[in-house]
């Protein structure tokens, strides 16, 4: 009986085999694909940092614009102007954070020239680091 069943059964198609293989591979690889919590934390931290940099500068810009409007009674002119300035500052902050200027949010041109220990070397004035 069993022999008959076996004879009737068509050989597994290549697609079937492929699917099985993929399943097995997925099962084997899934534990390794899970990044360790520390790297999740670092990635989340970076994402959060970029978001916060963007929002913080925007909030400052909108806040200043609103206060200026309140003070100068030019509503909504200053709010609009400072909204765009604030978003530009936010993008600047994000750009600096992402392009490896470390955590410095302010102007940091000479970062290349003084990597870690900046004792008494005169600040070089060439604008190479603006990249």
């Amino acid at each position: 009986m069993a022999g008959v069943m076996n004879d009737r059964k068509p050989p597994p198609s290549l697609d079937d085999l492929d699917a099985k293989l993929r399943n097995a591979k997925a099962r084997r690889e899934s534990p390794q694909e899970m990044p360790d919590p520390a790297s999740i934390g670092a990635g989340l931290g970076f994402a959060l940092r970029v978001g916060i940099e963007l929002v913080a500068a925007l909030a400052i810009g909108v806040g200043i614009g609103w206060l200026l409007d309140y003070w100068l009674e030019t509503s909504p002119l200053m709010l609009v102007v400072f909204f765009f300035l604030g978003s530009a500052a936010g993008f600047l902050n994000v750009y600096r954070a992402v392009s490896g200027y470390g955590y410095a949010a302010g102007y940091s041109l000479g970062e290349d020239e003084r990597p870690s220990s900046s004792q008494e070397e005169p600040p070089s004035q060439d604008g190479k680091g603006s990249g």
Partner: protein
Amino acid sequence: MAEAGSGHSPLEQFQIKEIIPLKLGGVDVSFTNSALAMTVAVVLVSCFLIFSMRRGALVPGRWQVLAELSYEFIANMIRDNVGQEGRRYFPFIFALFMFIFAGNLIGMIPYSFTYTSHLAVTFGMAAVVFIGVTIIGIVKHGVKFFGFFLPHGVPWFLAWLIIPIEILSYLSRPVSLSLRLFANMTAGHTMMKVFAGFIFVLGAAGLAPLVMVVALTGLEIIIAFLQAYVFAILTCVYLNDAIHLH
């Protein structure tokens, strides 16, 4: 959340409760659970440093190694990021780091209070850093400090646009500094509470959130250290910007 009642909200842990109500000239200066947590943090850090260094042995014991490690950690951070001139600001940055770190860790104890999850606290510290760094910059460099806002190589016809953007970018520093710590602590603790709330609701399937909460606790302890470190290193970076103008 509504039928669960306000007592089971995941945000309940952030509520400030008065322990000793106190009014001073119309200003509410009550001793709250936040103040209690801060007091505990200061006492713990002080005791840790005083008692572990009491003997000051040449061959340090465990506690002394811990104290020396934390000292060297901040000392190296300042040396690498600020340089020799930064050494006199060591006490401030060390105190800042230990205060934030202790606060984050105390927040990990169940039923305690995380004072770093309040924007008033983090923004207070960030504002002190920001104002202090700005004053240091102005005292050290005078009017030249304001050249900070005009990068080299900017053509004159763009200066009117760049200067406000740079000033806004500079002003956003304390906001992003305080928001980062506050958001990390608040989000992390809320997430833990939410997952912990699932454990009993799901019954037998609650094992999955339980595992998640265990993992999150580890992650939160990493974040507790990381955020204190980030706050301290950003203070160093800002200090460096003020001391060595580019």
